[in-house]
């Protein structure tokens, strides 16, 4: 969430947001019920999960999946659903917070 909450006089007209990219301040990870768990052993690094993740939460380095950004992952499960590996390289488990 934004650091300081503005009153109506401080806000720009027409619900304009003047600092683009400020959605990084909104950590949507709190929405999650299920958590994706990545198994590097099974993973073929086909990057289907990276393509399909609607929140760009699949972290990739040098063409390899290196983890999942849980700060923003909403737990939708698309990555696991799309994972073509038999037995799934990403599985969804209950996210106990």
């Amino acid at each position, binding site marked *: 969430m934004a650091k300081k909450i*503005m009153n*109506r006089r401080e806000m720009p*007209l*027409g619900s304009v*947001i003047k600092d*683009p990219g*400020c959605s990084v301040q909104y950590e949507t990870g709190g929405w999650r019920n299920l958590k994706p768990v990545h198994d590097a052993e099974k993973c073929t690094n086909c990057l289907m999960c990276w393509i399909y993740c609607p929140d760009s939460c699949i972290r990739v380095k040098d063409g390899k999946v290196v983890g999942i950004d849980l700060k923003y992952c909403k737990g939708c499960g698309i990555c696991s659903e799309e994972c073509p590996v038999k037995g799934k390289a990403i599985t969804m488990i209950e996210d106990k917070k």
Partner: protein
Amino acid sequence: MPRIAALTGNNAASEAMRQINPDVVAAYPITPQTEAVEEFAEFVANGLVKTQYVPVESEHSSMSACIGASAAGSRTMTATSSAGFALMWEMLPIAAGLRTPVIMYVANRAFSAPLNIHCSHDDTMGGRDTGWIQIYSENAQEMYDNLIQAVRIGEDPSIRLPVMVSMDGFITTHSVERVDLLDDETVRKFVGEFKMANSLLDVDNPVTIGACALQDYYTEHKRQHSEALLNSTAKILEVAEEYARISGRKYGLFESYKLEDAEYGLVIINSAAGVAKMVVNELRAKDLKVGLLKPRIYRPFPGTQIKDALKHLKAIAVMDRVDAFGSGSTPTFTEIRSAMYGLPNQPLMINYVYGLGGRDIRLEDISKVFHKLVDVAKTGKVDKVFDYLTVRE
């Protein structure tokens, strides 16, 4: 050079649009569109304006395109009527909420069913709470003058709101009248250049427009919008003052006709006010102290000023060309009665629906209303607050 021309209301609107020379006009080109847009398309084709003309596939799209163009910093105009107005409904509060000063000409026409293409105020009265500034025009001259002023009002940095300017469908849009026109240069100077703060095309200062605001911010946005609308009155009068200097025609928030010493008053909008003024003159000749108030700026509604103009009357009739179904009154009656509430000697008030679907309002109809007011004042009793005028019961 200023000119005098014989124009229909539609001609007057398209002529104003030509002189304003907007950056973008996005409009649905066929029925229920008015001739004004057809004429404007010719101006574009003939190179008389620099406007980017976008003939879209529906009014929902036309308003959407207008919002985008305006957010990008373009001076944007459109036009519609009745069912077209209804189809752009979803986008109307968005234009207002995003504070995009789109200027729209509306020919007031009835909603179906039954199918009717003639005048009622269904469209704009229905849209009165969508957050736009609303201006009503009695005749072609007022439409021309109001449309030019609307640009300055809507685009003012302290207001930044869309403005709809309307006149009566067919009755005014299709009647030829004498219209005094300003010369192009004067209009261009008057409207000036539109400079949009936080425009989408200002690449050095990128902004996000149309993001979501939930429980934490939505209320503040609405409050900000409400304040801007309510506070726009002073600026509207300032623009009117400036317009009077270039045109010799002065406009207020409403027109007050022989009200100062009147005992009985009529409140009526748009073209019917012309007929009613004639009746006022006739009855005045018979020593009946009658007067008329014709609202011009409807949003923001100048309740306090209207109250001051009407408070000395014995009885008032408010007539609307629309029924607020199920309310047992009409939109303008509700506004005015609310404004009058709390006065120590509150005038007696009655309310009529008239002229639906273009039905003629005749001199004798208005005269009957004034005589009803005399009765009401004499007896001190209102037997029926809300009624239809000229209906076969």
